[in-house]
């Protein structure tokens, strides 16, 4: 469904992505893990056209989208839930969700709203509340719910666990799996929480300094000693009792 070949991009003189190639098949959950500054977010942003790709190609469903601007991707079926939630703080939860369906056929709105609310029942009682007054976890749910309102075939999730309590993180990951199963939505997940992310992914990539160093199925990487040492020191122990 998504194929990235030898992608290079960066900001000014700094080249962040130094030739990334990866594939995401239809219906799977693919995960990209890596430390701070590895270039994970830059990869997703380059997918969305900002910064521009300097080299290489991005093909979605057989269509070259390397230079497609971000605001046209939704119509192609790609929803990007950016890092740090980026909800509309002064607008209500309902308005946030409506804006998620901005580029889409309004006749699907009621169904999509129902789906978002079955995924995130907490949002239902908060519909008339301003987005900015939600808790961090609720804001993340709203951001994901808003992304789903456009019925994407590919969902790009950038660090959905950022700054959330462990219990909420687990809930968010459960929901991601649910979205994948229920709607057959293909998901490209970027995460620092390697353990949780690898557990639910069909395929995973490890990114170091702007290049993919390791790839395999989620289970393979979960068992890889290098990955364990680099990204899950203590992480495993922490999550066992839970």
């Amino acid at each position: 469904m998504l194929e990235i070949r030898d992608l290079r991009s960066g900001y000014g003189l700094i080249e962040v992505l130094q030739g990334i190639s990866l594939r995401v098949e239809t219906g799977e959950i693919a995960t990209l893990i890596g430390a701070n500054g590895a270039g994970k977010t830059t990869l997703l942003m380059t997918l969305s056209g900002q910064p521009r790709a300097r080299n290489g190609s991005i093909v979605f469903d057989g269509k070259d989208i390397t230079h497609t601007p971000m605001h046209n991707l939704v119509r192609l079926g790609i929803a990007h839930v950016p890092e740090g939630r980026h909800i509309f703080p002064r607008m209500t939860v309902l308005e946030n969700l409506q804006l998620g369906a901005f580029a889409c056929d309004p006749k699907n709105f009621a169904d999509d709203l129902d789906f978002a609310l079955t995924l995130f029942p907490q949002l239902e009682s908060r519909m008339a509340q301003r987005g900015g007054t939600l808790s961090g976890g609720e804001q993340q749910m709203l951001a994901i719910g808003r992304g789903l309102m456009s019925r994407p075939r590919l969902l790009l999730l950038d660090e959905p666990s950022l700054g959330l309590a462990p219990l909420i993180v687990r809930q968010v990951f459960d929901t991601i799996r649910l979205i994948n199963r229920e709607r057959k939505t293909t998901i490209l997940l970027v995460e620092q929480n390697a353990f949780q992310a690898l557990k639910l992914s069909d395929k995973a990539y490890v990114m170091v300094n702007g290049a993919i160093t390791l790839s395999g199925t989620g289970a393979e990487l979960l068992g890889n000693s290098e990955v364990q040492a680099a990204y899950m020191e203590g992480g495993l122990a922490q999550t066992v009792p839970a």
Partner: protein
Amino acid sequence: MARGLSLAALRDAAAAGIVAGLLALPLLGFRLLDSAQGLSLGYRLSWVFYAVIGVFLGRLVLNLIGAKWAARPRSTHHNAAMARFTPSASQSEYIAGWAMIAIAFVLPFLPFVDRNVVDRMTLVLIYVMLGTGLNIVVGLAGLLDLGYVAFYAVGAYSYALLALNFDLSFWICLPLAGIFAAAFGVLLGFPVLRLRGDYLAIVTLGFGEIVRVILINWQSLTGGPNGLVGIPRPSFFGLEFRAGAGGFADVFGLAFSPAQRIYFLYYLILALALITIAFVQRVRSLPIGRAWEALREDEIACRSLGLNPTTIKLSAFALGAAFAGFAGSFFATRQGFISPESFSFIESAIILAIVVLGGMGSQIGIVLAAVLLVGLPEWFRDLQQYRMLAFGGAMVLIMLWRPQGLLSRRTPTAKLAEAGSS
């Protein structure tokens, strides 16, 4: 409990009265008399008495209202279920809005209202219209524009030049002036697409000045600093406001009075302002209005949801400018004379102050702020050279009292009941 409350209120009011008495005694109670025999001391104890009574009663009323205010059912934040069904604050705003419209309509017929008041309110309404237009750009789309007066000027000069050179009527020029101003809005919009905040403010400020300087220097077209004179006044469906046969008064069998034109202009701008307000109110709940607000909130989120920031920004600039163009052509026809002096930076500042003071996005807030900012300086005229001081002081007080503007609450444009059907 109610008795305890009012007792506490009474005690508090009494304390305030005593403090007022202590303060008023030296401040109001004594007076220096300058007579032929030299200075002597006079007493004004009655003033002290009035001050004490005034403060006592005022404090009591405030306390009682405040108690009620504190005891009112809290909604929005914690009780979302209630807020969903009864946006009570917006209902009172709704009533206030209709009351204001009603007052505006009967204003010229009120006994204490004379020509001057109507004329002054006409000016206030021009600023209501300008504020509402700028509100699209600043309040809704979040683009800080310090050169808004440029579009006002474009509108005014468009009307004046079209009417003087091509003999077109006001009603044909009005939409044309709006279109010209909107075109200038897009013209300004393009170079500033990538700018936000301070940078945008500086460039728009420069744009406003450029337009003014062009008006001063393009002598052959604009008349330079002398401006344009003899701009045709509007007619009532072809009937001119003049004495003699064929004039408005003659046809309707009235005695001719120059006040008739003033009253006509008042109703004209009232209608224009109401149309502007209704338009903006409506457009807020349309996709384009949503998109403006979303852009103000978060540009990255906008992009990720498929909203194109370029078109959103340009449409905000264009529509905001169009309303300034309408207001400008009305201004030109009302004055009969325009010069670049009317379109200096201070105008932009006042219009922006109206939007900010009104609460960035609130329609009623804008009306209140326009009355305050445009109306008050005129009523302060008795203060002579202290007028601007009083004006500045009033603004400081308002900003202390309501740092978010007079009415800063944002009314949601969607309610749940609608959601299912839309």
